[in-house]
């Protein structure tokens, strides 16, 4: 007994020593994403896009409007190559926090990019903040993330605030065209993501001073086996517009159930999440014809910005899918990092953070001018567009200066 326990303790000690050894020569960026567990699907897409981005940065590509693509490596650091190293959060705050600490412990990474869910981005960025280490968030959409007054936290993606504002600008526009959009049903998963998104929607509804009404408020349990009760509740309320905050593949279930139970609405709008997954459009085809959602990138963008085709091709070769908004946000985020390294001409946390604070990166990958952070670290040059699924593809339909295709309204004739 005694010996066995001592043996076990010794083994633990060995593990401790062995994991401490690691080395790196290039500029390493640590990426925190869910690479196992229920969100693996999203995590893997992120992984692929960062690999593409690193390739573009390290190699020489001629992409108009994308700085650092042509030059090899990071110009400000004599062309040092960028390497990306992935850490698995398993979609859990606890694991995410442990992994962040490991990143900081290993000390080879110069910057952290992550995470996917807001619930993981929050504690992980706290860890970085406490170590005064720069943390770039690519895709988490909870507006609260950039309301915490953190000094080392920056986010590239638009937030729920941007999306909801865009939705209601869109609805206002529709109203002006005489379309019926006043009765809104909101459907959201009872998670940090869903609740935050809908808080923003409710704020916009309140701000409209009675123009819009929430006729059905339908939160649902994450990971449902069926959504009949939810959909019937919506059906009973007869909304003009349904707004979704559904992160997960349940979006598929909703779409099918809407179809089965004959729910008709003029429009179905989605926050980022299940809707943006290209599989959603390609696999469900007719079922989801006419669904709309916020979109920071779709293949359709290439029609307006042909130069992005190269990136999409590279991504497609890796994953078999077209780039989507989330992936493009990730892509852009790595460029923000490179921009900061290049301008700082150093990799120590303080200099990099300082450079990030003064970022004014003009880049043509996302709607909006590019990337510039406010004092809370939120990107204020970002914009969002409305896409619609038409014949299995995402088409940008609003606002008019981005639109490539005419909108189908109502979604089901």
């Amino acid at each position, binding site marked *: 007994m005694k010996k066995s326990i001592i043996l076990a303790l010794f083994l633990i000690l060995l593990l401790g020593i062995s994991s401490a050894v690691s080395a790196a020569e290039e500029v390493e960026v640590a990426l925190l994403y869910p690479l*196992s*567990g*229920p969100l*693996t*699907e999203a*995590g*893997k897409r992120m992984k692929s896009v960062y690999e593409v981005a690193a390739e573009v940065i390290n190699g020489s590509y001629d992409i108009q409007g994308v700085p650092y693509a042509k030059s090899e490596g990071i110009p400000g650091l004599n062309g040092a190559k960028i390497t990306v190293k992935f850490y698995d959060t398993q979609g859990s705050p606890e694991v995410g926090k442990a992994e962040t600490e490991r990143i900081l412990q290993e000390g080879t990474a110069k910057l952290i990019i992550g995470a996917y869910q807001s619930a993981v981005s929050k504690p992980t960025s706290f860890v970085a903040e406490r170590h005064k280490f720069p943390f770039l968030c690519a895709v988490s959409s909870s507006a609260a993330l950039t309301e915490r007054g953190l000094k080392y936290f920056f986010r590239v993606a638009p937030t729920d605030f941007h999306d909801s504002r865009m939705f209601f600008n869109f609805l206002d526009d529709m109203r002006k065209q005489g379309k019926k959009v006043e009765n809104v049903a909101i459907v959201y998963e*009872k998670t940090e993501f869903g609740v935050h998104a809908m808080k923003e929607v409710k704020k916009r509804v309140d701000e409209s001073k009675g123009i819009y009404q929430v006729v059905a408020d*339908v*939160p*649902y*349990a994450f*990971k*449902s*086996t*069926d*959504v*009949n*009760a*939810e959909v*019937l*509740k919506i*059906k*009973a309320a007869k909304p003009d517009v349904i707004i979704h905050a559904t992160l997960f*593949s349940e979006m*598929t*279930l909703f779409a*099918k159930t809407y*179809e*089965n*139970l*004959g729910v008709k609405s003029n429009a179905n709008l989605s926050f980022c999440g299940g809707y943006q997954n290209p*599989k959603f459009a390609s*696999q*469900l*085809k*007719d*079922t989801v014809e006419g669904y709309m959602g916020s979109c920071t990138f779709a293949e359709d963008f290439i029609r307006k910005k042909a130069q992005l085709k190269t990136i999409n091709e590279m991504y497609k070769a890796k994953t078999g899918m077209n780039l989507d908004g989330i992936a493009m946000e990730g892509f852009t985020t790595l460029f923000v990092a490179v921009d900061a390294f290049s301008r700082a001409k150093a990799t120590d946390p303080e200099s990099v953070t300082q450079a990030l604070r003064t970022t004014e990166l003009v880049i043509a990958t996302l709607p909006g001018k590019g990337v510039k952070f406010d004092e809370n670290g939120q990107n204020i040059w970002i914009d969002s567009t409305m896409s619609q699924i038409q014949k299995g593809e995402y088409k940008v339909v609003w606002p008019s200066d981005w639109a490539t295709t005419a909108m189908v309204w109502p979604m089901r004739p």
Partner: protein
Amino acid sequence: MDVTIFLQLVISGLLIGFVFSLIAVGLTLIWGVMDILNFAHGDFLMLAMFSAFLMFANLGVDPVFSLPVIVGLLFFVGLLTFRLVIKPVLGYHALIALLATFGLSIFIRNVVLFFLGPDFRVINQSVLAGKRISFLGLHLSLPQLVSAIGCVLITYVVYLFISKSKFGRALRATALDKDTALLMGINTNRVFALTFGLGAACVGAAGGFLVNFYYVFPEVGLNFAILSFVIVALGGFGNIGGAFLAGILVGLVENIGGFFVGPEFKYTLVFILYLIVISLRPKGLFGW
């Protein structure tokens, strides 16, 4: 209150309830006979759904026709699981079997993840897909209707098999007293293996039906599995009729209760129902 909506809730509840029933029947067989809580039950469901999907995607076999193959496949998976994982831990602390099936669950899920990736998949061009029957403002999706009928039929066949056949008798005898069953000339290990196979085949059939209207991905089984644990306990362990009725009850409570109380509480209602029932009848609705 709109009557059509209420009727629709009842119908939807029944349709999904029958599927829950069959999944629970598979679980209750294993649980009742061997006193083993099979944590990998949900992963069996996922395996069945993925097999059906792969047969559809690669060989173009419609899920309606691949069903027998899926059932056979899962039966085999059940046998294999028993031989490799369950048999060595029989007779030890019940938690060890639980631990083993838990490990198996992690293993299966991640092997599937490794080979097939995390994407969710949907069968959208099958014989049944997208079709529905509408009358009086009520809608019945054909895939769900066919699945529900199929699940009821299979549950009934399993019930008959267990209560009337020679093997069923041997199975119940084994469940009650393994040693005495041995003395009666019953090869109890074979009974266990077949029961495990049968349980897996049930969940396989449920998966084969489910794939007609549900998406598939490596984690899909978890939610169904958790619900089926409650259904089995609600109906009474090892009681097929109990699992069947409890499954329907859960389907109804989840739909009707979810509608009136709030969809986010629908599973909570199921758990509360269980707690109420169990405090009145400590061995479930139909327990021994």
